[in-house]
């Protein structure tokens, strides 16, 4: 024992991970005097003998049983592998951490403190306290994937034991408590990490070489932060399912005021950084005035709006009140003066109304700026449809309420640009992808009120698919390109007999229905069409496509499903 202590003191001067590990192994096994260099040979023989004897004593320290496995080539093995062996072989050791990274420091810490107290006795004292966690650890010898889930329950139990213990500072003579708490603490940091990043939950965390100093620092930090990970564990998990659902891009959202709550709800669904930023920004900016808001994010909106200077003037006329109010309050400076003047004029008209919109707009705008990538299509859709409805009234100064309702979803979108309400949703898109359709809507509106009812729902329907195109493309697009898409969707090609998509579609459906002797086009005709197009084949059935691309409500209407009472819906 004295030799072991001497040996361990010898190694104090070399605080490498390997030496620390050796200390663990040495102090645990006091019978075999070891020299660092000659340890190799003797370990081979001695541990086996000792192992048999020691297995009977469950109260032995952790590293002992590891001798059997680690003894062979201690010099060649890394501390990580050593500890892994320790963890795997020792039934009473807590196997909470798959990474041996955790182990080197706490066990040497334990060892060091125990040595000060007269190692043997203190070690044995520690062991009973370790037993409860080790019994839990028994269940953790399961493969790595289950370890993450079990670690949570173990952590909870360990929390109850470890919390009162972990409060004590290190070197207080409560090395055992430290060990148990340390053992448990080290379980926790990984768990929140993996849970906070759901995409990496199943991946084993990457392993780096152990830096003892940094590790000790982390040790201190995590031991202090024991309470917080337990709570934060819940929330990331809760947001996990919503993440996938609501982060899903929404190209088409209802242009209703009721949209605003969903916008609020979608906040937590953003990625953590985004959500935090957005929430922080919202909380800050709700109080802040508009100009400050605008100045915070001058970069994005200015860049986006720079290219739309021409369109701004044209469109600015058509959108009074709200746009002007918000724009006027917001930083006019970043935008061009001409636009700002118009905005100011309009601002005077309805200041009160605009203030309401401004607050909602700023809130929404801040939020949306953060979720730019997700919101692209939503804002596009929202801006589109209100524009279509607002375009219905040729007069610019039509009822404020109508415009309010039309604009509110728009203002929920990011940074209301100074010049126009339309641009409130535009900043989100990398380019003025929606300008061409929007440019067109003022056109027919201006000409005659007659074709208006025919064109506007038509335009909105078409623009629906055009927006989808820009969403699927995932790349910035030219306005001309979008016009091209619209042309190829619907308008017949004037240069040839090349009819466009919808016309093709209708012709084919007619042929199929006629072939079946029907005058009604039925879903079977559609399936046949898709089969001929190559979308549906033997590998991919129509139901699969429906599942993939259509929302649940439509899927329920399309795919027959059995219900209770021996009923199938939709009926066949």
């Amino acid at each position: 024992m004295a030799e072991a202590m001497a040996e361990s003191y010898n190694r104090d001067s070399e605080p490498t991970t390997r030496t620390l590990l050796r200390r663990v192994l040495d102090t645990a096994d006091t019978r075999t005097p070891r020299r660092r260099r000659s340890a190799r040979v003797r370990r081979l023989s001695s541990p086996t003998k000792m192992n048999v004897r020691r297995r009977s004593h469950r109260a032995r320290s952790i590293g002992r049983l590891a001798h059997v496995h680690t003894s062979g080539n201690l010099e060649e093995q890394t501390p990580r592998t050593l500890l892994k062996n320790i963890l795997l072989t020792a039934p009473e050791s807590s196997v909470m951490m798959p990474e041996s990274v955790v182990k080197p420091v706490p066990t040497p810490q334990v060892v060091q403190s125990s040595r000060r107290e007269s190692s043997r006795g203190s070690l044995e004292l520690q062991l009973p306290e370790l037993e409860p966690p080790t019994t839990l650890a028994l269940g953790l010898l399961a493969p790595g994937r289950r370890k993450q889930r079990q670690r949570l329950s173990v952590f909870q139990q360990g929390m109850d034991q470890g919390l009162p213990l972990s409060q004590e500072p290190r070197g207080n003579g409560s090395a055992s408590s430290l060990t148990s708490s340390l053992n448990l603490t080290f379980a926790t940091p990984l768990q929140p990490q993996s849970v906070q990043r759901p995409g990496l939950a199943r991946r084993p965390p990457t392993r780096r070489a152990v830096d003892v100093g940094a590790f000790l620092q982390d040790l201190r930090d995590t031991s202090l932060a024991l309470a917080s990970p337990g709570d934060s564990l819940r929330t990331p998990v809760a947001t996990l399912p919503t993440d996938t659902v609501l982060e899903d891009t929404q190209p088409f959202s209802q242009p209703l005021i009721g949209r605003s709550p969903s916008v609020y709800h979608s906040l937590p669904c953003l990625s953590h950084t985004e959500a935090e930023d957005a929430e922080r920004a919202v909380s800050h900016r709700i109080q802040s005035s508009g100009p400050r808001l605008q100045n915070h994010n001058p970069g994005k909106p200015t860049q986006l709006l720079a290219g739309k200077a021409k369109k701004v003037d044209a469109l600015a006329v058509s959108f009074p009140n709200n746009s002007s109010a918000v724009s006027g309050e917001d930083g006019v400076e970043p935008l061009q003066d001409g636009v700002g003047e118009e905005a100011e004029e309009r601002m005077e008209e309805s200041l009160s109304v605009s203030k309401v919109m401004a607050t909602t707009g700023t809130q929404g705008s801040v939020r949306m700026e953060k979720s730019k990538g997700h919101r692209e299509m939503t804002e596009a859709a929202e801006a589109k449809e209100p524009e279509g409805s607002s375009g219905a009234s040729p007069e610019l100064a039509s009822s404020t309420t109508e415009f309010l309702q039309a604009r509110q979803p728009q203002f929920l979108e990011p940074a209301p640009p100074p010049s126009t309400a339309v641009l409130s949703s535009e900043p989100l898109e990398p380019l003025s992808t929606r300008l061409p359709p929007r440019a067109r809507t003022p056109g027919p509106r201006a000409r005659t009120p007659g074709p208006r009812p025919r064109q506007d729902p038509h335009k909105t329907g078409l623009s629906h698919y055009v927006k989808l195109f820009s969403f699927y493309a995932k790349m910035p697009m030219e306005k001309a390109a979008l016009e091209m898409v619209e042309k190829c969707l619907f308008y017949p090609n004037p240069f040839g007999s090349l009819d466009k998509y919808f016309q093709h579609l209708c012709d084919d459906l007619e042929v199929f229905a006629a072939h079946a002797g029907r005058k009604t086009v039925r879903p079977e005709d559609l399936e046949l069409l898709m089969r001929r197009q190559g979308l549906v084949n033997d590998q991919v059935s129509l139901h699969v496509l429906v599942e993939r691309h259509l929302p649940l409500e439509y899927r329920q209407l399309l795919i027959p499903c059995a219900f209770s009472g021996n009923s199938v819906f939709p009926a066949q």
Partner: protein
Amino acid sequence: MAFSTTVSQRKHIKRKAPRGFLKHVFKRQKPHLRLETSGDLLVHLNCLLFVRRLAEESRMNAFESKCGVIKKEHVQAAAKVILKKSRG
């Protein structure tokens, strides 16, 4: 108990299909034909897939021409290919 054919007012469908638009288009093209209720949902599905293919094709064209932006020519070339494909 079967589901109702209509969606309750509180339900908010993401990515709604412009069913009215599709029915209107079909009626204009083929006034002598009728389109079934679920048929227009499948038409919407077809449109989605068409637009998706178009977008991917034009994206590939843009990549090939080493452009960061999708241009009219890319879309035009893509449209030719995809329209040919979807002729059936």
